[in-house]
């Protein structure tokens, strides 16, 4: 079938609404942020690197950068290890597998603000359930300040974050596991390979694609999520649990440092784009 010119026109017309929305809400703000970070405004054209220089000298920026470098990798690894383990568990022949799968997905389904509020309540040092259990079992002798003591506050948020994030990884891994041909395992059994070797040499290589996708996606998600930090500690106490996202938010909407906040946001986006390149390439190649 040959397409006439009007067909081409129709094709572009169909794209128009989506393109307009993406332009106004995504593309324009993106470009605008980039320009603002270099001091360029509509009526004010003085190019400068000041915001980036300031950023490199700002201990608050490095603090949130460091926290992000703790928060993101530990969350991602936690998601991956727990998600893969539970997927292997749910891939066994057990009764009510579908039902269990939906139950395990619950933390991922509920709004993350709810997760933040609930965990904050469980972490409550005085009447929270976590301290109460640990005290009774005898693992701790006095109440732990989960969300305000220096050495653990960030890790307490990470714990809640893994609870929220791992079910999605589990779901993707389970789809991957179920698409593996069971013949290769049978061949392995005949050759006298044990379960651990089967996992390393047969299962993992077959999951490689799923693992790459999940790694890229969860890294990007954890990088930009603000909900848990916002609801559990608000970045505090002080700036103890501040991550890059919450730092940008504060600079923009609380201190109104538009150009400085833009510079941080640009640095963040560059980091994220670098991380997601393999993923984007993989999908476009499909």
């Amino acid at each position, binding site marked *: 079938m040959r397409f006439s010119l009007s067909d081409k026109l129709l094709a572009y017309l169909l794209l128009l609404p989506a393109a307009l929305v993406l332009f106004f809400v995504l593309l324009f703000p993106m470009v605008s942020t980039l320009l603002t970070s270099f001091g360029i405004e509509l009526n004010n054209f003085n190019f400068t690197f000041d915001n980036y220089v300031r950023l490199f000298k700002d201990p608050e920026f490095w603090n949130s950068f460091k926290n992000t470098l703790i928060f993101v990798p530990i969350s991602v690894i936690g998601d991956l290890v727990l998600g893969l383990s539970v997927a292997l568990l749910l891939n066994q022949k057990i009764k009510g597998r579908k039902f269990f799968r939906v139950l*395990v997905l619950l933390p991922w389904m*509920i709004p993350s603000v709810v997760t*933040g509020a609930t965990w904050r309540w469980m972490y409550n040092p*005085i009447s929270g359930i976590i301290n109460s259990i640990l005290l009774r079992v005898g693992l701790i002798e006095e109440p732990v300040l989960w969300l305000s003591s220096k050495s653990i506050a960030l890790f307490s948020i990470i714990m809640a974050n893994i609870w929220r994030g791992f079910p999605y990884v589990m779901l993707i891994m389970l789809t991957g596991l179920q698409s593996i041909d069971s013949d290769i395992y049978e061949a392995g059994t005949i050759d006298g390979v044990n379960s651990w070797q089967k996992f390393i040499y047969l299962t993992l290589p077959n999951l490689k694609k799923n693992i790459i996708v999940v790694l890229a996606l969860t890294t990007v998600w954890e990088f930009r999520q603000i909900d848990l930090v916002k609801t559990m500690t608000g970045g505090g106490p002080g700036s103890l649990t501040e991550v890059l996202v919450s730092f940008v938010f504060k600079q923009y909407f609380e201190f109104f440092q538009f150009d400085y906040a833009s510079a941080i946001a640009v640095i963040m986006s560059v980091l994220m784009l670098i991380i997601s390149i393999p993923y984007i390439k993989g999908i476009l190649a499909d």
Partner: protein
Amino acid sequence: MKQISKKVRFNWKIVIYLLLAVVLIYVLFPILWMIITSLKSEQEALLIPPTWFPKKITTFGFRYMWQMKPFLIYFKNSLLTAGPTAIFSTLFGGLAAYSVSRFRFPLRKFFMGFVLCTQMIPGVLLVGPYFKVLNKFQLYDTHLALILGYTAVALPFCTWMLKGYFDSIPRELDEATLVDGCTKFTAFFKVILPLSFPGIVATGVFSFLLAWGDLLWALCLTSSESMSTVTLGIANSVGEYRVVWPALMAAALIACVPSIVFYSFLQKYIVSGMTKGGVKG
């Protein structure tokens, strides 16, 4: 020999069920604790040590939450932003997906690649300048501002997912209707739409839930109580000096209901689309 192998396998089963029990406790405990707390009185929720089950089950939380904060307005706002978001993002995404799936034109690949890349950009990079644009058009603190924002965030997912659905419908089918003298539009409504209906519903529901669960955009783009969404209401309440936990947990529980109901039904549609669209979070 046969007997031994049977015995070994039997033990494996017990280990698996034990591990599964541990996982389920970990997964379900916070949700159960939310439910248990919501059924306690304010005094009982603050008891030290906390009681495992409410001594007296009360609906105090579910009654008090509406007085504590105007949650009725919050829920209304969440519905009024998430609903139109679902419609717009599915409609716009569907049109774009149809264009890319059924026409050949030079910008086709570029458009899909661009759409995918936008998904990698953090929301904080966008809300700032978007906020300025809204101020200029006096759209700050309106439903429309949130709807447009969420639509843009959900669009890439909708476009990629619906393109997948449209691609799976053989072109011969719509070409057959064209031969019958129908236009492209009737082909769309007669062939494509009915065949990809489950995908369209799944896409719409997904966009709805994305808007329903969002905090960042609501936080940055609304300022008045009368525009606040449920998630924003919960996030604001949790940081206050006096938190009435049973009421807050009751509100949280109600906020979970649409998410849990819809996701449970639609998980199988959403998984495949999510890995491509790369949204949520």
